[in-house]
């Protein structure tokens, strides 16, 4: 049995955008080239700025969206070509945690109903058996029975996110896709949730696909990371390697842009010029060339290939590496 829980190969997703009645339909390449693997019990983070396609990738893997091309393997089974009715197994072993702890919990349901929902869908447990499981899981995420009889909107953001985690956890999933799970929370609460996620991983051997724009959070939680820019992973590898020795100019700039919480470490930053281009109209060649400080002629014409770098599992796509 292989140790890979998730394998994604050459994933692509394009959306059709109709611009009114007379204009030609436009396609947006939300995800243009994403490949990575997650091992069991490991955290892989997708990091990037808005519009880079990291959330879309998460939704493709959880099959909330249909991939246009490419394949997704979960625990050795290809799920990208299956119909919803064939996904029962996967719907139990893959769960999601969402960014907004306010919008992701139904305000008209009691906490116990919210947490028990996966059980209601996938099992035939009696109400009292479900109740027992809910109480168990509440204890695990640091809530108590008191919380189960109330509505989610009676709680603070951190507590709501714990409820969301409890819901994801109740089916004992193998993989949790966490889409910006802490970015709506205050720092002191954020660290509580991050610690909880790490503890749960240690205890139950869950793998995480962690989607975030916050590099400091990503560095803290991940084993491996993939840096995305305009729909493609431009650099990926073990966390320590990528953070200590970034190879792609975008990764370098991104790392340098993060404000450091230490006033003695104020340093010259690599300030990228211009804005992130719109995925509606992506630049030719390497999509980063419009903002890259090292752009060459070839960057405008040719898409760089993904290359294996010196260290194991460290990949990057940049023409500079050819020289």
């Amino acid at each position, binding site marked *: 049995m292989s140790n890979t829980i998730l394998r994604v190969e050459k994933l692509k997703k394009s959306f059709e955008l109709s611009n009114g009645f007379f204009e030609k339909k436009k396609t947006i390449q939300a995800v243009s080239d994403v490949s990575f693997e997650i091992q069991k019990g490991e955290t892989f983070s997708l990091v990037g700025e808005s519009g880079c396609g990291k959330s879309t990738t998460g939704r493709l893997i959880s099959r909330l969206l249909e991939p246009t091309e490419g394949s997704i393997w979960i625990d050795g089974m290809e799920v990208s070509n299956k119909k919803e009715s064939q996904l029962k197994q996967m719907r139990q072993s893959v769960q999601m945690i969402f960014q*907004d702890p306010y919008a992701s919990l139904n305000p*008209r349901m009691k906490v116990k109903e919210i947490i028990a929902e996966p059980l209601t869908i996938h099992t035939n447990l009696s109400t009292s058996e479900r109740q027992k499981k809910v109480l168990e899981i509440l204890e695990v995420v640091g809530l108590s029975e008191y919380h189960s009889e*109330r509505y989610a909107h009676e709680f603070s953001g951190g507590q709501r996110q714990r409820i969301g985690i409890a819901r994801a956890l109740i089916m004992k999933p193998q993989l949790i896709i966490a889409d910006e799970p802490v970015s709506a929370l205050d720092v002191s609460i954020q660290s509580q949730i991050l610690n*909880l996620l790490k*503890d749960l991983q240690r205890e139950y051997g869950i793998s995480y696909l962690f989607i975030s724009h916050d590099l400091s959070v990503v560095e803290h939680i991940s084993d491996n990371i993939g840096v995305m820019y305009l729909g493609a992973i431009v650099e990926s590898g073990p966390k320590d390697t990528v953070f200590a020795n970034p190879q792609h100019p975008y990764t370098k700039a991104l790392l340098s842009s993060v404000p450091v919480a230490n006033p003695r470490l104020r340093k010259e930053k690599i300030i990228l010029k211009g804005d992130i281009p719109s995925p509606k109209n992506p630049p030719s060649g390497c999509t980063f060339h419009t903002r890259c400080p090292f752009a060459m002629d070839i960057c405008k014409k040719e898409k760089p290939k993904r290359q294996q770098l010196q260290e194991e599992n460290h990949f990057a796509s940049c023409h500079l590496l050819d020289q």
Partner: protein
Amino acid sequence: MNSVSIDKNEKTVSMQPKYSPVKEFWKNFRKQKVAFIASVFVLLLILVAILAPYIAPFDPYKPNYDALLEPPSKSHLAGTDEYGRDILSRLIMGTRISLSVSFASVFLGMILGTILGLMSGYFGGWLDRIIMRSSDVLFSFPDLLLAIAIVAILGPGLNNVIIAVTVFGIPSFARLVRGATLEAKENTYVEAAKSMGAPHRRIMYKHIFPETVSSLIIFVTMRIGTAILAASSLSFLGLGASPETPEWGVMLSTGRDYLGTASHVVIVPGIAIFLTVLAFNLIGDGLRDVLDPKTKND
């Protein structure tokens, strides 16, 4: 399972009173004075409708040729009609007929319209297009004209009035629910339910339908007023209840010949229709202020 050591930091139990949506609703609805009075009136009407045979002072069908077109007096509080029948008793029986016709047609229309609207909004695509285009067709007829056409095809009678009023209610309900569905569908918790593998029926019933309930309640109350008017109009035109039935529209219709000589024959049922429709609309307004704060104060 309990071996995990996780800081149970947030177990700060605050002693706030338990939140209950029903209590919250009552607290706010009682503040709507006009709507509250209107709903007391409607409750009275419903009570009258239920107890009609017991509280009607006379037999509403039995003619009394000694007391034709008598003005209101001690014995006949609302006077008598052209056959000497007690108008108050007919009014009381008519409450039962008018309310049951309008309730039945509105609820039927609501159930069918809600199902169609939910499916249309949730699935989208060709199903949405078929449902919405068909309701556009129904919409393009003036309300009453459509009902007249339906009754004309089915033949007169109270049951057919119910069907006619139901049919012209369906597209409005479908459109309302579809709009609410489209909005509710965008909630992340709907996406969350999908990611758990919840079947469509469950998502529609548990996650989307509850979001449409408050607008449905408002619309239903408003709609009942309209349905009473429509049913009375059909009866007035001779397409509804038979002439001897104590239905408000029929009473208006048969009484209009005596408008000059014995105006109470027309005025009394007219006021009944007016007050009832007004009461339902006022309740609807009040409910909207309570249930739909977005449209408040405009």
